[in-house]
């Protein structure tokens, strides 16, 4: 490995909303797409397993809907919003490491929002970055 080769610059798209548990949600109309943040994938390291919900499952904001496991740790997934699961990313069953290579575009599930007002309670990209900075003491 050359120096700096893995010195990835983490990025947090400005049109996403974030949770303090390190999920992101991108909303298009009444449907939200959910994944985990670049910070989360980097902290976990090599991801080997994603436990997905089923289509039709009802999610509640702030509640656990699945988990993601790396070689060294397991981390619960918390739903950013309430709603009904309309799609899950089946690709992650065979290739969970896709989250490591691009956390921002590798989605985990799509959810039909039952209360769009919940979005205002989530963090903006800038707020999320500030939150991480505080968490890590940098």
């Amino acid at each position, binding site marked *: *490995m050359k120096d700096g*080769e893995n010195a990835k610059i983490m990025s947090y798209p400005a049109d996403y909303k974030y949770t303090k548990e390190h999920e992101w949600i991108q909303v298009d109309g009444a449907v939200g797409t959910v994944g985990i943040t670049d910070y989360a994938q980097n902290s976990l390291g090599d991801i080997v397993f994603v436990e997905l919900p089923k289509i039709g499952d009802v999610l509640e904001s702030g509640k656990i809907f699945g988990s993601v496991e790396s*070689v060294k740790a397991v981390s619960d997934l918390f739903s950013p919003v309430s709603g009904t699961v309309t799609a899950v990313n089946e690709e992650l069953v065979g290739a969970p490491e896709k989250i490591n290579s691009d956390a921002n575009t590798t989605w985990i599930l799509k959810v039909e929002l039952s209360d769009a007002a919940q979005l205002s309670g989530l963090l903006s990209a800038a707020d999320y970055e500030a939150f991480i900075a505080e968490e890590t003491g940098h």
Partner: protein
Amino acid sequence: MAEATATLRKTALNATHRTHKAKMVDFGGWDMPVEYSGLIAEHLAVRTGVGIFDVSHMGDIQLRGPGSLAAVNQLCMNDASKLQGGQAHYSAMLYPNGTFVDDVVVHKLSDNDYLIVINAGTREKDVQWVRSQIGHMPGVHVNDFSDYYTQLAIQGPKAVETLQKLTSTDLSTIKNYWFTWGQVCGLHNVMIARTGYTGEDGFEIYVPSDEPTSARVWAEVLEAGAEFGIIPCGLGARNTLRLESAMALYGHEISETINVFEAGLGRYAKLEKDSFVGKAALVEIQAAGGPKRKLVGLEMIDRGIARDGYPVATLDGTKIGEVTSGSPAPFLKKNIAMAYVPVQYAGVDEELAVEIRGQLVKAKVVPLPFYKKPKKVVLA
């Protein structure tokens, strides 16, 4: 966190690890790299090529003087009288009840001179224990040399070829668990030991612990191994490598509440020795029919990853034990664990369950170790 970091101990390579963008963690009070480029890549580099680890946090106690052999043999369960100069063996220091103070590697430097390599997390406890147990014995001088060495582990099937470029010593003459002194990276009298904690061929070298020397040797090893794809490896890969090879980790498979027979390490306890701390208890345990529980290897049958501390149960959900170490095995590509279970459940192929966050997930007992390095093919 910033305050805590300030009190963590650092090896001489701390700045080097940060240059490599290592993820650093608090490991038993030490600020150590858990991974650099990624745990799986690091693990595979050691299984298929070569990797380098900074293991300078390990401690080193020297026992010297005409009474040193008697002291080592009183302190450690293996029989150091069997060692020749330049030879090392696995051993352990026990409490009088036959449980573990620590597991150690005893090196016989020469007659009347032994070096005991101990774990990082137990350094202070071990040094105090050594002094309390054998300090009164005649003709032995105890030195704590823990801070004198930068200890580097160069591990993997390409370890020999990598290190050979940096030394005039013919490494092929050093047998497994033997060591010698030689010139490495221009440094004289570097201890070169064919030891490690990965289940792979490799060496541990002990160089002076000043920062410039440590950083230079680290860099030269990386350069020498570049053609074999060497990468720096962290404690994460060190843990999964030793788990695949079923090597014990203090605080997990061995501790002050687990005895030698339970841990399956009875072959290193030489009960024929006149005396050693813990012997009487081991003799008693053996006379009583052996241990009631045993360390077993588990392989998950159903989907799920067993982790340290998860309960182990029978298939009907009765809790019978606990996982001591569990993880995905990056080389074997299975989810494996070691666990203590009552002896009646310890037979190979026994089906058990691991409770993973409230769910019973099926696993089976498999022989240990999970991984054995391939035997070298000798062409006639």
